[in-house]
């Protein structure tokens, strides 16, 4: 055969064999938000299947807690989702309060709501930055998120003495009252933050690159989301308006006025947008909580609780709407000073269950964005 005819012979594509290629992503990978590994099956650039491998950050927290008193376990909850230490304290102390029948003064409830919502806007601001990271806008958007987070960490430091591992809530209240100078600074955050969200939105919400990377990527239909037990912004982006703050009306939330933003498609773009709107709602909640806090007498932040707590034998399940979803604690007491069973229902863990289903059929680059848009902290997934 001459060279000329060889070139003109069309390639018989159907005779070529193709096979799926396994690709290992992680555990050390900048876009995996911690030590998370996925074994991905690829057909060309397309994800055929995916198997998450967990446990690189497993620290036996549930077992550790069984050997400690109830009080000693509060700092351990900080280390579940270290981005949201404050909201991790909350369901744990709620569960113990339920178990032991402890009342919480109103001022402490106001403070808890303020801390919860500050954590939420901090988490969402960071998440949006990291999502852009995953899209290739390396570090600049995160810097803006971190800049805003610093202001909130300053507040946490004033109240609790620590920026990240706050260890602030107690059974029947909080560790100490808000210090002088806290409220003016908080007011400044509340006043300034909407401007920051506007900046974010101006740069991102109608951004052509963000939209083309996120729209219709990783769709999670509402009925699948419910079946998988998905909660938080991921669930609401799928169009299911379920929020523990509205359903359980715990703490002060029953009397506060705020809306629950929901998405329509359930794609990555909706998950981005729901978080932007949730930040705006959190500012609304903060304003109302500050009003209510000012009506309460200073100093009344703790009800009477015995130094060594021995809740009566029984069990309790308490849950809150953490920034990542439903965070629950299931405690079983045998009447001693240590819990018999200490179980964490972690939103990061359960929300990851449908990951394979969400990623199938998408490209490798989309995989990173879908994973990022679920918003997880590996410390909470692995515990």
């Amino acid at each position, binding site marked *: 055969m001459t060279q000329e005819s060889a070139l003109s012979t069309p390639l018989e594509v159907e005779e070529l064999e193709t096979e799926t290629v396994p690709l290992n992503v992680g555990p050390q990978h900048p876009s995996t938000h911690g030590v998370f590994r996925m074994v991905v099956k690829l057909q060309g650039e397309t994800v055929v299947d995916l198997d998450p491998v967990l*446990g690189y950050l497993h620290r036996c927290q549930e077992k550790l807690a069984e050997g400690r008193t109830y009080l000693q376990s509060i700092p351990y909850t900080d280390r579940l989702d270290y981005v949201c230490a404050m909201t991790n304290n909350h369901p744990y102390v709620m569960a113990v309060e339920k178990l032991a029948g402890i009342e919480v003064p109103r001022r402490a409830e106001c403070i808890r709501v303020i801390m919860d919502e500050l954590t939420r806007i901090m988490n969402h601001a960071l998440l949006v930055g990291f999502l852009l990271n995953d899209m290739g806008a390396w570090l600049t958007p995160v810097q803006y998120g971190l800049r805003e987070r610093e202001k909130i960490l300053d507040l946490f430091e004033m109240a609790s003495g620590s920026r990240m591992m706050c260890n602030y809530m107690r059974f029947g209240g909080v560790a100490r009252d808000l210090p002088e100078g806290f409220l003016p600074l908080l007011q400044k955050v509340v006043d300034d933050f909407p401007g920051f969200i506007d900046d974010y939105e101006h740069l991102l919400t109608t951004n052509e690159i963000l939209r083309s990377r996120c729209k219709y990527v990783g769709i999670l239909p509402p009925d699948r989301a419910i079946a998988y037990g*998905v909660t938080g912004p991921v669930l609401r982006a799928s169009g299911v308006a*379920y929020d523990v703050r509205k359903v359980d009306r715990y703490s002060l939330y029953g009397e506060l006025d705020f809306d629950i933003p929901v998405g329509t498609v359930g794609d990555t773009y909706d998950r981005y947008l729901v978080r932007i709107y949730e930040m705006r709602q959190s500012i609304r909640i903060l304003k109302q909580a500050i009003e209510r806090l000012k009506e309460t007498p200073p100093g009344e932040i703790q009800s009477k609780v015995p130094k060594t707590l021995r809740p009566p034998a029984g069990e309790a399940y308490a849950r809150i709407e953490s920034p990542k979803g439903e965070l629950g604690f299931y405690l079983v007491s045998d009447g001693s000073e240590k819990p018999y069973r200490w*179980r964490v229902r972690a939103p990061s863990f359960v929300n990851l269950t449908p990951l394979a289903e969400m990623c199938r059929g998408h490209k490798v680059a989309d995989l990173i964005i879908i994973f990022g848009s679920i918003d997880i902290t590996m410390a909470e997934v692995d515990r």
Partner: protein
Amino acid sequence: MTEEVFRRLEQALPAGAFQEVQENGARVLAPEFLLEAGRYLRDEEGFDYLSNLSGVDWIERGYFEVVYHLYAMRRGERLVRGEASGGPLGPLVLKVRTPREDPRVPSVTSLWPGALWQERETYDMLGIRFEGHPDLRRIYLWDEFEGHPLRKDYRPEES
């Protein structure tokens, strides 16, 4: 209102399916009726959301307990949207018991896929086998690991 749900459930199941009614309202079911009860609660009573699945080692009583916390998500959603919920929201607490020597419980993954990883975790930590689970492997610990750390009689190698 959850009491009424349990009353209707009891009527829907054969006699003797409920082994115990606990102080806090939790029901202990015979394991063989777990799937039937789950299907009834999900399809007829609207408990579409399995929030928490966990296990407890009652070593002195000789059994493991698997605990299910169920909520009605679609009803909760109606409440959030400002309508009447039209029924109880949860939590509905179900339990099943299985002997420590050979712990086996039917898997509820066919009803609530949200149990997929939580059952794997409970298997990993307590060694309870969930029959019918499509992929029952350890989830946190490595495959060669021996023992189940959350069991009360578990001792680490060194000690």
